Structure formats: C-alpha cells, structure tokens
C-alpha cells in the first residue's frame, strides 16, 4: 500500500503540468489577438490605434463598386458616426438599418478600414414582437 499522500502527489504532477501548459497557451494566444469591442461613440471618444471591433447601425448611404465586392457606408450609433470601407462579400442580410460589427482599423483619414464585416444574424430566438 502506498500512502494516499504519495498518490495525490504523483497524480498532481501531470495535473499541474497540464494546467500550466493550458494557462500558458491561453495567455500567449490571447496576448496578441484580443481586440477592443466598441461602439462608434466609444471609438470616437478614445482613439485606439490597433485593431478594434466596432458595432453600429448601417446608414442609408451604402455605395457598392467593383461588382458589389467593395462597399462604403456610414456606421452610426446613438450619437456618433464614422465612414466605413470594406472589400469582400457582404452578408445576405446587409442593408441600411441593420446592426453590423466591423473589424479593422480607423485610418488617419477618419475612414474605418474593415477587414471583416459581420451582420448580426437574425437568430431563431428573435423576431420583432407583433405590434398593431
């Protein structure tokens, strides 16, 4: 019979090693890739130089060029707005009035250069309540 303490020690070693490795992986992976998630007004109030994600509502001035693969529009929240430029296929539900999340950088020219554009997906859990 081996004392329980020895057993605990023996099995704690792999546990501690795995935990340390996982901790390191989380730390190192999140170090470079976390981004601020902001609204347009928050971005305006506090200019971030790096990559950020910004949520806001698409305004009516959507302009498509290059056969629909390049698009410019204004994104706005309650108080602030910013011009956005994006190249790529657009989500199906993209149109003025929907909420989008753009990921990219705010250029010195004040235009937000988006690398990705996500539309808030109409979830099966949400529809507008019926109003008469």
């Amino acid at each position, binding site marked *: 019979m081996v004392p329980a303490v020895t057993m605990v020690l023996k099995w704690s070693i792999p*546990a501690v090693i795995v935990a340390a490795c996982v901790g390191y*992986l989380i730390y190192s992976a999140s170090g470079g890739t976390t*981004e601020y998630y902001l609204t347009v007004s928050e971005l305006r109030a506090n200019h971030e130089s790096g990559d950020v994600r910004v949520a806001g509502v698409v305004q009516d001035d959507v302009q498509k060029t290059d056969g629909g*693969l390049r698009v410019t529009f204004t994104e706005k929240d309650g108080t602030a707005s910013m011009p956005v430029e994006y190249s790529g296929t657009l989500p199906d539900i993209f149109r003025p009035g929907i909420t989008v*999340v753009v990921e990219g950088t705010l250029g010195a020219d004040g235009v937000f250069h988006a690398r990705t554009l996500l539309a808030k997906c109409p979830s099966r859990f949400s529809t507008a309540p019926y109003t008469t």
Partner: protein
Amino acid sequence: MPLEVLDGSVHDVTGPLIGYLGAGALLAGLVMGGFSALLSFWAGGQENAVMVQVGRRAFYAAAAMAVVAGVLLETALLTHDFSLAYVTEHTDLSTPMALVAAGFYGGQEGSLLYWTIVLGILGSASLVASAGLGVRLAGYAAGLLAVILSFFLLVLALVASPFDLLSITPPDGLGLNPVLRDGGMLIHPPVVLAGFASFAIPFSFAAAALLAGRSDAAWIAHTRRFALLAWSLQTAGLLLGMWWAYHVLGWGGYWGWDPVENVALMPWLATTAYLHSSQVQERRGRLRTWNFTLVIVAFLLVVFGTFIVRSGIVPSVHTFAVSSIGPWFLVFLLLCIVFSVVLLTFRSGTLGAGRAQPTPVVSREGAFVVQNLLLIGAVAVVMWGTILPLVTGMLGGERVVDASYYERASGPIFVVILALMAAGPLLPWRRAGAASLRALRWPAATAALVLVALLAFGVTSIAALVALPLAAGAAATALTEFARAVARTRRDRARLLPLIVRKRRRYGAYLAHLGLVVVVVGVAASHFWQQEKDVTLTSGQSVTVGGYTLTYAGSQQRQAADHTEDVAMIRFGDQTLEPSRAVYAGLGGQALTHVAITTTPLADVYVVLASTGGDGSASFRVFVNPLVSWIWAGGAIIILGVVLGNAGERSPAAEPVRRRVPATMPA
C-alpha cells in the same frame, strides 16, 4: 378569463381555447413536477419504495402535461392560429408547412417547450430503467429530474409562455426570416436542443448517487448509457450545425468560434472526457470523484450555455431577443453550482477512497487521465474566450478574441490528444512494459511515413506536419485493433463477426476513433489548404482556382411568389453550377444567397454569387475547400460506431457485477 370581443369582431373561439388549454397544461405540469420533486426526495430518504413509485409516476404525469402543451402549440401552428402571439411572430401563411411545423422550436418560448418535452420523455425513460439502482438512488434521481423539469415548466408558465394571446387576431403572421427558410432548420435545432436537454439525466443520476452514497457497477452502466445518448445527440447536433452553416451562410467555412457554437462544444468536450474516464472506474474502480465531477460539470456547462445564449450578454454574430428569462437562468445556474460544489465537497468522501495501488503514469489509466486533463484544458480555453467580453467589460474596456485565439490556444491541446489517441489504446492497464511499448511501432511507422510524404509534397506548415501524421498514427492504432481481432480468429479458427459482435463496445469505440480521425483530416485539410478568390467575369470567361476551372455561362432572372432570384450559370466539367441571389421584396429587400457546392474526391468547389452587373457580368467569390466532405463522412462513422457499439447492451441489473464497490453509508 371571459372570451371578450375586444375589437367588436367575432372572435375565433378555437384560438383562445388553445391558448388557455396550453397555459393550463403547463401549470398542471408544474404542479405535478413540484409534487414529484418533494415526494421523491422524501420517499428516497425514507427508502419507501411505494412512495418513490408514486413520485416517479408524478414525474411521468408532468412530462405528459409538457407533451400535451407541445401538441397544442403544434396544432395552433399548423392551423395558423394567429391569436397566439407565438404563432404570429414566427410563421405566416406563405411559409411552407414543414417550416411552419418547425416554427415550434423556431423561437425562444417554443424551443424551451421543446427542451422541456425532451427532458420529460428521456427523463421518464431513464426512470423506467432505474429500477435496478435501489430505492434511495432512484428516488433522489426522480426528485432531481423533477426539480429541473419544474424549473423549465415554471419559466414557461410564468415568464416565457408560448401561449400568450394577442388582443386582436391579425390576418397573417410575421413569418420566418428567409435565412432560416431552409431544410437545415428541420433537423439541426431539434437535434442540438435534444442534446442539451439530455445532459440533465446523467447529472441527476450522478448527483443522486452522491446523495445516496453509492457508485457501483449498475450506477456506472446506467449513467454511462444516458451520457452516451447525450454525447451522441450533441455530436450529431454540432456536425449538423456545421453542415448547415457551410451550406447556407456562404462564407466558405463551417465553424466560427461564435459563443453559440462554443457553448455547445464545451459540454461535449466534458462528456467526451467522462466517457473515457468512466472506463477507469469500470475496470479499476478508480477516479470515482473525478467521474462525478465531469458529469456534473457537463450539465453546469449546459445551463451556463443556455444562460449565455438566451440572455445575450456576450457579443455574438447571433442577436438574441433581449428577454426576461436571462435572470431566471442565472439564478438557476447559481443554484446548480452551489448545490454541485456542496455535494462534491461533502459527499464524495462517502464513495470510499480508491484502493491506493501504485499506478504508473505510463499505462492505460495514465493515458486516460492525461487525455481528461487536456479535454478540460480545452474547455478552459473555450470558456475563457467566451467569457472574456464579460470579464473585461466589468473591468473597463470590453475586449474580444477572434478565431486565431482559439486556434492557437486549443490547437496544441488537440494535437496532444491525437497523440494520445495513437498511443493510449495500445498501452495495457496498470503498467506498460517494453512489450507494450513495442506495440507502438505501427502507429509510429505510419506517422513517420505520412510525415515523409507530406515533406515530399512540399508541405511547410508546421501545424499540418504535426497534426496529419498524428492523425494517421491514431488511425493505425484503431486499425491495429481490428487486425488483431482478425489474427486472433484465424489462430483460433473462429469466425470474426461473432467476436466483434461480442466485444462490440470495444470495436464500436475504435470505429468511432477512426471516424474522428477522418473528421480531423477533413478539418485540417480544409483549414490549411483552403483557397479563395474574388473574381468578376463576363459571359464565356473562365477562372481557375486551386486547379479547378470554372466558366461563366451567363445569368438569368427568375420570379417567384415572394422573391426575385438572379441565377448565374457556371460550367464546371460537364456540370452546371447555379449560385444565386434572391431578393425578398416583402422583407425590406433582404437578400438571400444560395451557394453552389460541388464535391469532387479531393475538394469542394464552393461558389458564391456576389452580384450581377447590368452589362451581363457577374462577381463571384470562389472557394476550394479540400476534404470538407470527410468531416461529414467521419461524423457519420463516429455516430455509427457509438450506436453499433452500444446497441443491445445488456441492462446492468442482468449483468453479473464485475467488481461491486461497497456502498459506504455515512454514519
């Protein structure tokens, strides 16, 4: 409440009737559920077999009430009874009937009711099968299931009722978003919701065993069976979700590390760990507390996920209705956590410490332990990425991670798990000597061969050079087991099939391992070698992506009842692909892309129509996704392995108990 005629028109009587009956069924179910919970706990504690039986029947009655409510809601949907707010908000007269029927689980309230029904039916089945477990354990399990069922019925009856009536019956409903008007809607949500609901059963039996202070072979077999069911449903649900996203959403991928996907993955990972570690308890009587913890954690992850998904507190591509059920699930989650922690802290001692035999780390049980730790590590990685916006939001600037975080943090963990899949099954229980290490030569040789082949083909991605050889090694290990079976039957002049059928659990598991390897190869190939090209073509022009040549042959416009569709025709070999883009006038001009996908042996060619120009040109985004079809095929093999491996498994009561662990009752 009287049937008042609010707007002066004659009211359709069936509508309010279904509403009232449904609400009544939910309340009756809630009463029965509460009664079952109180009686079952009391009778279990008293070991009163008759009263435990009554408590169990009360649970069946509560489940039956949930089914009645479900039948009423489905009737209301199919008869277009727009007096119910739920029917109006999720369907309309133009929706095809199959999707009207699917509207049942298409919204918040209906999906909760669907969940409750699945919990009621599977819970009843688990209680019917619980007779061999003893009065005390069966009573406590029924009580816990009744508490969970009653919680859902309470939320349905009070906060999120699908039977709320509108004051005026509108002539037509609001309909379903076109993105959801797809065949995938018919299969993915019901499977994934059923998977979520079924985790409550292993949890209830684990917690009941802790309360009753026993964890013998019959308990393991019973809990394992329902954990396997939950795991299989969740596997199918995850794969169907990936399949649906891939075929419908048109971004060329199938997994986006969105919180909605993450919360479905985490209980799956924890249960995967349990299905492996429970074998250590079966074979060696060890890891009992750990197994309880895994089953309980899987359920807590389900409740956590439900809270996250339905409260909308983390940013997601999905928008969730800002609903009033969030706080209810938060309270339920906190109660479950407190209950579980208290239970594990104060009751796990009653299970008896495992016999302290020295167990070397290099052994089958050692491999299981490390694999378990890694799977829980993967849960931690996914959890951190999911809750980071919450944590950082409380501390100041809200931060999010993107897919690369998950890939970089969980990739190495999954790679080591693959290595364990290759080595673990060849290690013997207790101690691995030199002979058993020699058994590793086949997977090692296979991995080396694949590595050399990849290098010869000029592959430079380190991740691919590590993952694919290890996957090949894991496949070799599973195949070695089948080869051994063939060799043994040849030596003994026995027939192969009876051996495999007799040891089907073992061979089913290796088949599932092979399926997982096929999935891994598909994921790795499509991840490392996906090609993508944006292109604008005029009629007759061609484009070549990844060696596949596509020729644009013009486009046409088709008119349908509720939408206009631009269809592009693309010739690919002797096939014609028709990616299209529909615009629904009735929904504010919302567009809906139909992706054209063709599967060749090596890759999917995936064409998305971005737009058509006035001059006859059209813009496309073309993806070449290598081996994506392997993911679906591998998923099917996994499910097949699990089903074949466990079909007709004898009930634990009929099976002689191999090693009964004495139930130590607290003094």
